């Protein structure tokens, strides 16, 4: 095991949180999308985190995005007979993105990212002091 594992742990978490931020951005951008890439209403995406051991000792566990799941919540239905995707009754099924939930997710992800960035800067300070050991 090496002390540089600290960097890997913090980096893995920053990576995972930025994936989460990405999905949040994608969800927010598509909050009003009646059509997703597959031609169906856009489904909100959520990340699933999983802890991964960084070395054989298993003491330091990083995190990774295990999978990205689509929300099963029903889409919002609006009455818009002019829309080309409206059904016979004039209703359009929009995305199932909940903007409030996404905002909460975004704040949580950015705070978690900051926390890990700070872990990394502390690790850097400690390592710098360690490599200058005995030089003063």
């Amino acid at each position, binding site marked *: *095991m090496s*002390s540089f*594992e*600290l960097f890997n*742990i*913090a980096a*893995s*978490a920053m990576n995972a*949180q930025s994936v*989460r931020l990405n999905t949040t951005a994608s969800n927010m951008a598509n909050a009003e999308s009646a059509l997703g890439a597959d031609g169906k209403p856009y489904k909100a995406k959520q990340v*699933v*985190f*999983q*802890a991964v051991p*960084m070395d054989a000792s298993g*003491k*330091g*566990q*990083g*995190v990774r995005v295990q999978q990205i799941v689509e929300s099963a919540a029903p889409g919002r239905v609006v009455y818009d007979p002019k829309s080309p995707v409206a059904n016979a009754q004039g209703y359009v099924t929009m995305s199932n993105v909940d903007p409030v939930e996404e905002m909460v997710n975004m704040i*949580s*992800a950015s705070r*978690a990212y900051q*926390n*890990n960035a700070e*872990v990394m800067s*502390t*690790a850097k*300070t*400690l390592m710098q*002091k*360690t490599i200058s*050991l*005995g030089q*003063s």
Partner: protein
Amino acid sequence: MFEEILSGVEEMNVQLDNALRFHQTALNLRAQRQEVLAANIANADTPNYKARDFEFGKALGTAMQGGVPAVSLATTSPLHISASAPVTNPQVKYRSEEQASVDGNTVNMDTERAAFAENALQYEASLTFINGMFSTMQKAISSQ
């Protein structure tokens, strides 16, 4: 003559080793604890992750009392100078839960951040102690 010098060197080496061993072990354990705490912070949003930590004082005590096997340099000649260092293998345990969360995660960010900051400071303190010992030795061996 040569043998005498060699044994003198070895003697000094052992003394240097012994003088530094305590802080070396402490530093090692601080680094390991830092890693465990960083893992807790990293997994603050991982479902079913259980926060972990170890008791620093206890781990240091075990390591210093030789409760764990030491690694030593392999010597292939009687002229080689031997050296050994205790292996630090702390018992990592799960933190008791303070506030249950729905996803089974037990990381309390405030606790972790506080422990992380404290541990970083203690790590720096260990570095300062070692630096102090080095400068003391430098003074002792410089001709003044």
